[in-house]
C-alpha cells in the first residue's frame, strides 16, 4: 500500500488521463492568479468604502476576478470528473479482464465476491478522490505560493506568520493521516467482509429458512453492521481530529495575522488597503490544503480501491500462440500430477484419448475426476507432466482456439443475468432461434421453457434463482447442444435429474456424443452404457477398466 496522495501508476496504466492531469495543473496556476486578483480588488473597494467612496474601477475589477474564478472552478470540476470517469471505466475493464486472463481457478471462492464489489462500489469511491481531493491538492501547491509571494510584497511580517504556520498543515496532516490510513485499511477490510457476509446470507436465505435461522441471522447482520460502526467511529475520531487541527491552524493564523496588523494600523505603520489585502489573502493560503485534508479521509477509500485494482489487474497472460491445424486426433496426458495448496488431486496420471472415443470416468467423490476435466479445459495447469493435443503441449496452445473445440457441462452451471435463450447461446452467440429451440428439445428443457412466464426470453437470475438445480443442469446441456463441438466434457450430466427426465437426457446425450470425442464423469451407471471404455479415478490415480458395453 502506498501513502502517496497520487499513484504514479495511473499515468502509465491509464494514459488517457495524462492530458487531464496537465489541464488540472494549468487550471491550478490560473486559480492562484485569480485569487490574488480578487483579494486585491476587494481590498481596494473596501479601502475606498472606508472613505465613504465607491471605487467603480475596483468594483468592476472585483466582479471580473470573481467571474474568472467561476470559470476556473467550472473547468477544474469538469476536468477532474472526466478523469475520474475515464479511470473508473478503464480500471473496471482491466480488473474484469484480469479475471479472464488469470482463469477461473484463481477467481474461485471468496475472491469472486471481493472483485465484484471492487469493480462496482469500490471504484466509485474514486469520485471523491478525483473531484474532491486531487484539484485541492493542486491548488494546495499553487495558491499558497502565489499568496505568500503577494504578501511578501505587501507586508513581510504577515507573510512570515503565514509562512511559519502553513507547513503545520501538511505536517499535522501527514501525522494524523498516517494513523487514519491504518484505520481506514481496517475499515475497508471490514466493509468487504460485511459485503461478502451479506451476499452469503442472501444467497443462503432459503437454507437459513429451512433451518429456522433467518431471524437469528438478522441479529448477525445487525452485529456486523454495528461492528462496522464502531470500527468507523474509531477511524473518524482520528480523522476528524486532524480536521480540527487543520481548521484551528487556519483560523488561528487569521487571528494571528489580523490582530498585529490591526495594532500596526493604530500606529499608522501600514495602509488600510494593504491590511485588508493581507486579511483577505491569509485564509486563501490555508483553504486548499485544509480542503484537501478534510477530503483526505473520504478519498483514502478510493485510493485503497485504486491500489487494489491496479495490483490485481497487472497480471499478463502467458503468450499462447500455437494453433492446431485440423481435427484433433489424440489427447494424451503424460505423467500428469496436479497439486493444490492442501491436497494432491492427480498423481502421475498417463492417459490417451483418441478421436471419437467415449470415455467414462468413475470414482469416489473428491478423487480428482473434475480436476481431470479442468486440465483439459485449461483451468488447471499440471504441477508436473504435460497434456498433449496431437503432440502439442496444451500449455502453449491458444486457449480460446482450443476451447472452441470443447463443450463442457459442469456440475453447477452458472446462470447469467440474461434471457434463457442467451444463456443457452453462451458458446454460440450467433446460433439461430431454431438451433436454440432444437437444443431446448434435445436437453429435455421444453417443459421448463413452457412453464416460464416469457418462455425463452425469460431473464434468468444470478446463480440460477428461478430455476431448480435439475433445470439448471438441463440449461447447461442445452448449451452443449448449441455449441456443437467435436469434444465433449460432461461432468455428470444426469445428476440432479429425475428418472423420467434422466431417460430423456440420456437419450439426448446419446445423440450428442454420437460421432464425437467424449469424456464423461459418471456417478450414475446409466451413462456408462454410452462409453467405449471406463476409467476409474481413485485417490488421484487412474486405472483403465474394460470396455463397458461389451
Amino acid at each position, binding site marked *: 500500500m502506498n501513502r502517496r496522495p497520487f499513484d504514479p501508476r495511473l499515468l502509465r496504466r491509464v494514459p488517457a488521463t495524462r492530458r487531464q492531469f496537465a489541464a488540472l495543473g494549468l487550471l491550478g496556476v490560473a486559480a492562484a492568479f485569480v485569487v490574488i486578483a480578487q483579494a486585491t480588488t476587494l481590498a481596494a473597494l*473596501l479601502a475606498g*468604502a*472606508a472613505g465613504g467612496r465607491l471605487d467603480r474601477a475596483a468594483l468592476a475589477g*472585483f466582479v471580473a476576478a*470573481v467571474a474568472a474564478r*467561476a*470559470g476556473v472552478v*467550472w473547468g477544474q*470540476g*469538469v476536468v477532474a470528473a472526466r478523469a475520474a470517469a475515464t479511470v*473508473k*471505466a478503464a480500471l473496471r475493464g482491466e480488473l*474484469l479482464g484480469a479475471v*479472464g486472463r488469470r482463469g477461473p481457478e484463481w477467481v*474461485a*471462492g*471468496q*475472491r*469472486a465476491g471481493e472483485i*465484484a464489489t471492487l469493480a*462496482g462500489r469500490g471504484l*466509485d469511491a474514486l469520485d471523491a478522490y478525483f*473531484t474532491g481531493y486531487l484539484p485541492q491538492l493542486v491548488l494546495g501547491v499553487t495558491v499558497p505560493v502565489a499568496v505568500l509571494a503577494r504578501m511578501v510584497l505587501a507586508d513581510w511580517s504577515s507573510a512570515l506568520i503565514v509562512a511559519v504556520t502553513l507547513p503545520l498543515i501538511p505536517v499535522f496532516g501527514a501525522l494524523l493521516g498516517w494513523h487514519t490510513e491504518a484505520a481506514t485499511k481496517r475499515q475497508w477490510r471490514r*466493509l468487504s467482509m460485511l*459485503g461478502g457476509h*451479506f*451476499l*452469503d446470507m*442472501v444467497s*443462503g436465505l*432459503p*437454507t437459513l429458512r*429451512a433451518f*429456522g*435461522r*433467518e*431471524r437469528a441471522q438478522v441479529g448477525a447482520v*445487525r452485529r456486523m453492521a454495528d461492528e462496522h460502526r464502531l470500527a468507523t*467511529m474509531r477511524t473518524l*475520531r482520528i480523522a476528524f481530529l486532524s480536521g480540527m487541527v487543520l481548521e*484551528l491552524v487556519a*483560523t488561528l493564523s*487569521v487571528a494571528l495575522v*489580523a*490582530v498585529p496588523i490591526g*495594532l500596526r*494600523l493604530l500606529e499608522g505603520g501600514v495602509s488600510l488597503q494593504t*491590511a*485588508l489585502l493581507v486579511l483577505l489573502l491569509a485564509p486563501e493560503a490555508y483553504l486548499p490544503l485544509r480542503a484537501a485534508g478534510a477530503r483526505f479521509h473520504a478519498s483514502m477509500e478510493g485510493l485503497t480501491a485504486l491500489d487494489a485494482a491496479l495490483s490485481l489487474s497487472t497480471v499478463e497472460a502467458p503468450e499462447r500462440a500455437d494453433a492446431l491445424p485440423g481435427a484433433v486426433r489424440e489427447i494424451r496426458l503424460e505423467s500428469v500430477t496436479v497439486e493444490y495448496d492442501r491436497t494432491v488431486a492427480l498423481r502421475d496420471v498417463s492417459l490417451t484419448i483418441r478421436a471419437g472415443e467415449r470415455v467414462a470416468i468413475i470414482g469416489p*467423490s473428491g478423487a480428482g475426476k473434475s480436476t481431470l476435466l479442468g486440465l483439459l479445459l485449461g*483451468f488447471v495447469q499440471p504441477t508436473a507432466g504435460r497434456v498433449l493435443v496431437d503432440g502439442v503441449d496444451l500449455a502453449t496452445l491458444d486457449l480460446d482456439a482450443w476451447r472452441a473445440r*470443447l463443450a463442457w457441462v459442469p*456440475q453447477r452451471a*452458472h446462470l447469467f443475468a440474461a434471457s434463457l435463450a442467451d444463456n443457452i447461446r453462451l458458446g454460440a452467440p450467433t446460433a439461430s432461434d431454431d438451433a436454440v429451440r432444437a437444443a431446448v428439445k434435445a436437453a429435455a428443457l421444453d417443459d421448463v421453457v413452457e412453464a416460464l412466464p416469457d418462455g425463452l426470453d425469460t*431473464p434468468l437470475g*444470478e*446463480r440460477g434463482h428461478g430455476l431448480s438445480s435439475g433445470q439448471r443442469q438441463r440449461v447447461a446441456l442445452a*448449451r452443449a447442444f448449441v455449441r456443437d463441438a467435436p469434444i465433449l466434457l460432461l461432468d455428470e450430466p444426469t445428476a440432479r435429474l429425475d428418472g423420467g427426465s434422466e431417460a430423456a437426457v440420456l437419450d439426448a446425450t446419446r445423440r450428442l456424443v454420437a460421432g464425437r470425442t467424449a469424456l464423461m464423469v459418471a*456417478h450414475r*451407471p446409466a451413462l456408462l452404457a454410452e462409453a467405449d471404455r471406463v476409467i476409474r479415478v481413485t485417490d488421484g490415480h487412474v486405472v483403465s477398466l474394460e470396455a463397458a458395453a461389451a
Partner: protein
Amino acid sequence: MTSVLRLARPYLSQLIGAGLLAAGTEAAGVALMATATWLLMTAAGQPPISALTVAIVSVRALAIGRGVLRYTERLTGHDAVLRILTEVRARVFATLAARRSPSVETRSGDALSRVVSDVDAVQDLLLRVLVPGAAAAAVGVLAVGGAALISPAAATALAVGLLVAGIGLPAAATALTRRTAERVAPLRGMLANDAVDLTHGAADLAAYGATGAALDAARRRAGELAGLERRLATAGWAVDAAGVLVSGATAGAVAAIALRAGVDGVLVGVLAVGTLAAVETCLALVAAARQLTELRAPLARVSALLEAPSPSPATSTVDIASITVRYRPGGPPALDGVRVDLPPGRRLGVVGPSGAGKSTLLATLAEWGGSPREVGGLLAEAYVFHASVRENLLLGRPDATDDDLTAACAAAGLLDWVREQPDGWDTVVGEDGAQLSGGQRQRLALARAVLLDPAVLLLDEPTEGLDPAAADQVLAGVLGAARGLAGSGPRSAATRPDGAGLPGLSASEASATSTARGAVVLVTHRLRGLEGMDEVMVLDAGRVVARGTHAELVEAPGWYRDQWLAQEAAERGYLITRP
C-alpha cells in the same frame, strides 16, 4: 424516504444536536471574517486601543471555537447516522428474510449493491443533506437579520443573493442532474451483475469462449456509465461556477447599495466580507441538492424494501390428511389431496418424475411442522455458507457438542475428510462451498441435516452428486443415524407451538401417539435404497398415483417398475465393468 426517516426517529435529538453544532460552526466562520474586517477598518481610524479589545478577544475566541465546534458536530452526526444505518441494514435483511422466495429482481448482486450502496445513501441523506441544509438555513437567517440592523436595503440584496445561492442554484442543480442521476443507479446495478457474472461465472465463460463477449459487454456498460458521469459533471460544475459568481456579485451589490444608503464605511466592509462568507455557506446547499438527487433512486429502493408487504405465500390447505397446494389462487394445484401418514419411526419414500411436486411436499411439511427442529432436514437448493465446517453444521443446532458433530459427519461420510484438514472443524469452505468438491459439499449439507435431528427428517435427494457405492453407504449411514437418534433425544414430547400436534401422526389416529421420533421422508430419483422404506409414494403432477412398499410397487406395472428395471439394468451393467 419517510420510512427511512422513521428509523431515524430514536436518534433525532442527536441529529438536531449535530445540526445546531454545524450552524454554530458556520456562524463562527462568518463572524470571524466580519469581526476581523471590523477590527482592521476601525483600527485605520486610529481610535484608542480600548475600542478594539472586545474585537481582538472575539477574533481569537471565534478562531478557536470554530475548530472545536466542527469536531464535536462531525462526531455527533456520524455516530447518530451510523446507528441509524445499522438499523436500516438489519431491517433490509429482515425484509428479505421474510420473503418466501427470492424473485428474479432481487438477485444477490443487486441485493448486495442495495445494502452496501443504497443503504449508504441514508448516511449521505442525513450527513450531507439534512445537517448542512439546516446549518445553512440558520446561518442565512442570522446573516440577513444582522445585516438588517445595519442597512435594510443591503439586507435585501443579501437575502436575494442567499435565496439564489440557497434555493435557486440547488433547484437548478437538481433539475440538471435529476434525469441523468436516475439513470446511474440502474446502470451501476447492471454493472454489478456483469461483475458477478464475470467472476462467479468465470469458468462457464472461459469454457465456452464467451469471456471476451461478456467482458466487452461489461466494458461497454462501464463506458456508458462513464459517459453519463461526464455529462453529469459538465452540468453540475456549471452550477458550482454560478455559485462563485453569485457570492461575488452579491458582495459587490451589498457594498454598492450600503454605500449609496450612506452606511458607515467600516460597516460596509463588514457587510461585504460577511456577505462573501454567508453566501459561501449557503452554497453548501448546491452540493446537498446534488446529493439528494442522486440519493432519490437508492432511497426510494430502500424505502420500497422497508415498506414492502411480504408477498402472499402459496395457499396450502394445512391438513395432513389431504395436502393441497396452489401457488396462484385458481391456478393448477402443485399438490392435490396428498395424504401423509407418519407415525414414529416411519420411513416414507417419495418418488416421481421431476415437477411432480416432491419438493413442494417437503416444503409444505416443513412449514406445517412449524419449526425445523420438528420437521426439517435437507431441502432443495441447500446452500453452504462461507464459514467454517463447524459453523455450517451448527446452523440447525447451535448447542451441539463436538461428539454430535463427529456422529453427524460420520453418518454423512464426511468425517475422514474433516480429520484430514489441517484446520479440522474450522476449515473454511469458501463461498457456497466453493473450496469443496461436489460430493463433499453434498455430504456437508447432509451432515447438517442429520445434526439438526428433527422429529421428522426430510431428505431431498440426499445422495445427489455421489457415486452409487458412496450413495448406498451415505444413505444407510443417515437413515441409521435417524433411527439411532429416535427416542434418545431430549425433546421426545415435542409439540407444535400452537398445540395442534405433530405431523408424526396419521390424521385419522391423532390421539394414538404424542411423539414422532425417527420419522423420515426421503425424496429421491434413485430407487435403490427404497427397499428399506416402510412406504413409498409415487407422485405425478401433484397427485399420488401409487403407494405401497418397494416390493409391492415393483410387482405392479407402472412408472415405478419401469424406472426400477431401467435403473437396475444400468446398475448391473455397471457392476459387470468392475474388475
